[in-house]
């Protein structure tokens, strides 16, 4: 990544945070000023799913090509996804405290992010229990694919079947997650939201690149020492 891009990402995210906190918020029924969490919580959740997908994608890449480069990228995506899903859990939990009155109450959405955390945890446990590199790469790739096909049951099916208090669940205001596929936000809010999504995705890609490079260098120096 070019230096100017890093600077742009830095300024961009700073601006998004400043505007997100300072800008007067449009009217969203039932959420009010608490809706500012949209600028931070939604990008985190989006990135935790994106990273999960990328981890599986590179995992499949490894299974096809048998190149360790893919495995390193797959593990890197999983590490970052884990961090972002923790952040999504924390931001969501803080919001839940002020909107629902408790940090955690096993809402279907909370269950789904909890399962995502568990899967990431299991993925790392599996990786640390396998010593032979090729075996670790192929088995963890297989596990991430199996996990990826079962997660939609949680993220997409269950919150829609069961009653959820999360915005988008039955009877609560739904600025983003709703069945009609539209966004109910004022134009100004929507711009900040998109800007935030783009900014955090850029940050993620930058982190991903650095971590993947470190992983590759470590792997190469290991090969040279042997």
């Amino acid at each position, binding site marked *: 990544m070019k230096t100017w891009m890093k600077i742009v990402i830095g300024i961009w995210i700073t601006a998004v945070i400043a505007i997100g906190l300072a800008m007067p918020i449009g009217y969203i029924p039932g959420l009010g000023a608490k809706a500012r969490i949209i600028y931070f919580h939604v990008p985190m959740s989006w990135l935790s799913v994106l990273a999960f997908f990328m981890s599986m994608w590179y995992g499949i890449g490894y*299974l096809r090509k048998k190149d360790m480069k893919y495995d390193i990228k797959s593990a890197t995506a999983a590490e970052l996804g884990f961090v972002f899903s923790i952040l999504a859990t924390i931001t969501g939990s803080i919001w839940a405290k002020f909107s629902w009155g408790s940090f955690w109450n096993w809402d279907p959405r909370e*269950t789904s992010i909890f*399962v995502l955390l*568990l*899967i990431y*945890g*299991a993925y790392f*446990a*599996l990786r640390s*229990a*396998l*010593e032979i590199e*090729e*075996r670790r790469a*192929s*088995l963890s*790739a*297989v*596990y991430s*694919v*199996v*996990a990826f*096909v*079962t997660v939609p*049951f*949680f993220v997409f*099916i*269950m919150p829609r*079947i069961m009653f959820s208090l999360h915005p988008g669940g039955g009877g609560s205001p739904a600025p983003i997650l709703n069945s009609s596929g539209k966004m109910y936000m004022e134009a100004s809010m929507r711009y900040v939201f998109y800007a935030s999504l783009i900014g955090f995705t850029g940050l993620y890609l930058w982190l991903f690149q650095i971590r993947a490079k470190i992983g590759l260098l470590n792997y190469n120096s290991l090969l040279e020492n042997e």
Partner: protein
Amino acid sequence: MFMKAAAAILSKDFYSELRTRYALNSLIMFVVVTLSIILFSTAGEAVSPSLSAGILWIIIFFAAMSGLSRCFVSEEERGTAMTLQLWVKPSSVLLGKLAFNSLLIYVLNAMIIAAYLVTMPSFVVKAPLVFILTILIGSFGLASASTFIAAIISKANSKGTLYPVLSFPILLPLLVSVIDATRLSVEGGSLAEAMGDFKIMFSYSVVVTTVAIVLFDFVWRD
């Protein structure tokens, strides 16, 4: 040819199980121990029917976690995995093992449920059809996911602890729907009410079995 090999694997596992009765004996003891712990801790308490439905699946889940990994772990421990790799197609191995594990879990569940119905006074099934369907579909889903995870962990260190850790997040969609369907059957819900749960169980079983067959090559031949 393909099915014949799978049937051969099934009968091989069946006979070696009959010879030692290792899995069945230890599983029966496991169920007895777990059930008695639950009975001790709920003695004198009024356990609500919906809670008893959840407890039933806790027993089934952990019984499965302690018994179903054996099918692949024993092959690795005895060093017979190589022979199987030489002689049989990977998908036949998976199907044979899946058939054996399904059989095992059906027998086991029949015993667990019989023991549970006798010892748990609050667990009275009011909608038998819903309950039987839940057990039939749910057990197969449980067997398919845990057979595949067993294949993965049989190659790893610390197999025993890793197995429930890896299986739980994969099995959770199934567990949530079977517990909900069992609760409905205890509360006397209709078949139509449980339909959503059945759909999830069924699609889950199909998806996991398919993915397992597709990916088993990569696990088995490394």
